[in-house]
């Protein structure tokens, strides 16, 4: 730190926060300075979200001082915080899907001429703001049709239009691809250069390393590290977060039994509009990775396979020809799909853990009536085995942290005892400790004889976890890498369409025919 530190534009001093009798923040200090990027990291449940919400006026602190420009303030609403130039961007975007880019940008503070809306002026301002971010989106496009990264940009543009001095971003890269992440990082650097104070959280420690100037690490509601980001390596950061030494992130890969039976054999699967000519094999006990850019048709392919969307093609399950017209049929045959979108497709956020856990396998708990005590026992077991940490047993699932939600989703999916598990983005928005647990779990399941497909956008994850990786692009399988060939470079070459490989299914079908 050779430069003289400027005065903090926003500072927390000894912030405490209690929910009922439970204190979740135990005196947090944190200072954001203009023109600097500050990363806040910690495991899920460490108190990051609460800290950010107090900064942005979503929640009041129970004790402690909040200073803006050196002056003590007390935000009663987020609008008061915004008026002071403190804006927060949520992980789940706060955008009205059916409104256009421009309408979202000015939502709640529309420009008017007399009593009528001044659409021309709003459109002009929209173009200016998006041009500043180097994202010339059509102002009339409905937000529902934007990609995740464009939504992120729109959120940032919204913050800029409110003249944010402090920008708080909750996991801005969680739903972005590598390329999109790179663009975002450029924008963040540009904002920093313009003097904005930026706080962000991320579970991707290499990003933190690349982007942050200052770093705060939290654990169990308290700050355990505060200082320069440069001083710590990603490994040090992970250890500080978890509070113990991190062994290897990925479990060792055992050598595969070549005589293991084929669990799933797919030939010429077509998912109209999304994928065609999909052929691959999956052995019992194997973890098959599926890589590709967002939009490559990975999710759609496997949703088609499981009967979640119309598809046709030849599917053999342990040698038997099957056809799934509905997810219930796939599940009855032991093929389970774990969705990438746990909040809108995976879990009932307004319900408790018990109802969620048993929803998919509910028939197992019911003769005529649902046996609630058996459900409670299953929950006890799931909480223990999957290390689900919840404040109380009756807690709504929507209030669990992302990692705990994901563990619950795993518990739910595995409760139906599948033979083939398709896990779509199994570690999205999950902290490093939980990630490690999930990797170990997947490997353990495979060792027990489950056939596992892991779809992921995180290259390192696939390389570290999978036995083989299929690479998809534009609805087709372009290649397969395995063993020593599994490098990031090889996968990216296929994903970008630079290299082309003979489809493995074609070879195998000849071998096994």
């Amino acid at each position, binding site marked *: 730190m050779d430069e003289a530190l400027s005065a903090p534009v926003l500072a927390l001093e000894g912030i405490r926060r209690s929910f009922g009798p439970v204190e979740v923040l135990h005196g947090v200090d944190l200072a954001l300075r203009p023109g600097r990027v500050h990363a806040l990291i910690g495991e899920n449940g460490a108190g990051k979200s609460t800290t950010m919400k107090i900064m942005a006026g979503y929640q009041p602190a129970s004790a402690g001082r909040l200073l803006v420009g050196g002056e003590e303030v007390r935000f009663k609403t987020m609008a008061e915080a915004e008026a002071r130039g403190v804006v927060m961007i949520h992980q789940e975007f706060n955008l009205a899907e059916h409104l256009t880019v421009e309408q979202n940008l000015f939502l709640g503070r529309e420009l008017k001429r007399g009593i009528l809306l001044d659409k021309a002026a709003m459109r002009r301002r929209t173009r200016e703001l998006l041009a500043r971010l180097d994202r010339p989106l059509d102002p009339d496009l409905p937000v529902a049709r934007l990609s995740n990264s464009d939504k992120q940009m729109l959120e940032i543009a919204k913050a800029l239009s409110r003249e944010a001095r402090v920008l708080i971003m909750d996991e801005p890269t969680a739903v972005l691809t590598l390329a999109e992440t790179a663009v975002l990082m450029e924008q963040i650097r540009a904002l920093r250069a313009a003097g904005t104070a930026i706080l962000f959280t991320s579970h991707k420690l290499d990003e933190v390393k690349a982007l942050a100037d200052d770093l705060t690490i939290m654990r169990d509601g308290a700050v355990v590290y505060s200082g320069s980001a440069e001083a710590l390596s990603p490994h040090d950061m992970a250890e500080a977060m978890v509070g113990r030494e991190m062994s290897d992130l990925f479990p060792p890969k055992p050598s595969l039994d070549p005589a293991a039976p084929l669990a799933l054999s797919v030939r010429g699967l077509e998912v109209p509009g999304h994928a065609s000519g999909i052929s691959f094999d999956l052995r019992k006990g194997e973890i098959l990775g599926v890589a590709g850019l967002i939009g490559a048709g990975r999710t759609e392919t496997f949703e088609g396979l499981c009967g979640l969307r119309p598809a046709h093609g030849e599917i053999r399950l342990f040698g038997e020809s099957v056809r799934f017209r*509905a*997810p219930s049929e796939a599940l009855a045959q032991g093929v389970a799909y774990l969705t990438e979108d746990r909040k*809108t497709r995976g879990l009932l956020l307004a*319900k408790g853990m018990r109802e969620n856990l048993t929803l998919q396998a509910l028939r197992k708990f019911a003769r005529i009536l649902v046996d609630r005590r058996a459900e409670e026992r299953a929950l006890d077991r799931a909480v223990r085995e999957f290390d689900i940490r919840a404040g*109380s047993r009756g807690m709504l699932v929507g209030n669990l942290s992302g990692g705990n939600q994901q563990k619950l989703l795993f518990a*739910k999916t595995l409760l*139906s005892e599948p033979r083939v598990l398709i896990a779509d983005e199994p570690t999205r928005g999950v902290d490093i400790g939980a990630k490690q*647990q999930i990797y170990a779990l997947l490997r353990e399941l495979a060792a*027990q004889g489950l056939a596992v497909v892991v779809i992921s956008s995180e290259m390192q994850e696939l390389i570290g976890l999978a036995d083989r990786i299929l690479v998809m692009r534009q609805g087709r399988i372009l290649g397969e890498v395995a063993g020593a060939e599994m490098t990031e470079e090889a996968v990216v070459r296929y994903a970008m369409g630079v290299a082309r490989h003979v489809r493995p299914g074609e070879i195998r079908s000849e071998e096994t025919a």
Partner: protein
Amino acid sequence: MTAPLPASSPTPAAFAPRRRISMTVVGPILALILLAALGAWLNPNFLSAANITNVLARSAFIGIIAVGMTFVITAGGLDLSVGSMAAFIAGLMIMVMNAALPSMGVGIPIVLLGMGAALLAGLLAGLLNGLLITKLGIEAFIVTLGSMGIYRSLVTWLADGGTLSLDFQLRSFYQPIYYGGIFGVSWPIVVFGLVAILGEIVMRSTVFGRWCAAIGSNEQVAKYSSVKVARVRLATYVMLGLLVGLAVIMYVPRLGSASASTGLLWELEAIAAVIIGGTLLKGGFGRVWGTVVGVLILSLIGNILNLTDLVSPYLNGAIQGLIIVLAVILQREGKSGA
């Protein structure tokens, strides 16, 4: 199949069972008790066996329908057609029984035939609503608004603008179904009670009830959890249709007639009862006992206003509206404070 995870923390979450009396539970019951106390205080006859029987028996039609409505609403649907459907089924049942009278004569078989016709008509009507909603994907509001008009017109047409009346002798024979009873409890009350108890069990403790709540809470999640969304939703409408048929079986012997004004606004009373009882109008959570309380609250208001000269009869509607809104506010306050 489940592999134990290597615990990253030695302390798993401490689960202290925490139960708190919530206003969402107490609210409707409190409203019912207050109303009953008010009634007893204003008129000593209120608590007489005869009056209690009257109130419960007349609640039975809407009550039976409202139990079915609870499932439809919990699964994220709505049915506006039940009042008209009841009128139509009542008309149909009367016509079937009158038509069969010359050949079958007065007796139990003809009553059973009428009952069968009512249940079958209810099942078909519910199936029609349900298929249009689930197969063609039309909004429940629009489908049932349409069928509401259709059934209302049909019954007017069947009755030629007047009233369909059950043959007098047949009615005298059939009457005990409404006025008679067992152990001093009249049949409509017995049937309503059974439907309510079964409904509560189905909602609370069966796969079907849980699926209804899951679909109403988030259809996508239900779909991804291998719930047969369309089939469950269809079943809620069919069940409601059957219960409308059952309500009609209780209704016809009372006055032995059906006309264009039969069942007028029953759909709104049933929906109001469901919501007063704490079921969410947008779906995802439902409770049948709450609906029963809601039905009783609505009936008691009318009864108390008739038994007393508290307010001008012109204001009856206003008092009812006020109490409905109050009952719901009571619950909301509970929710925000919870």
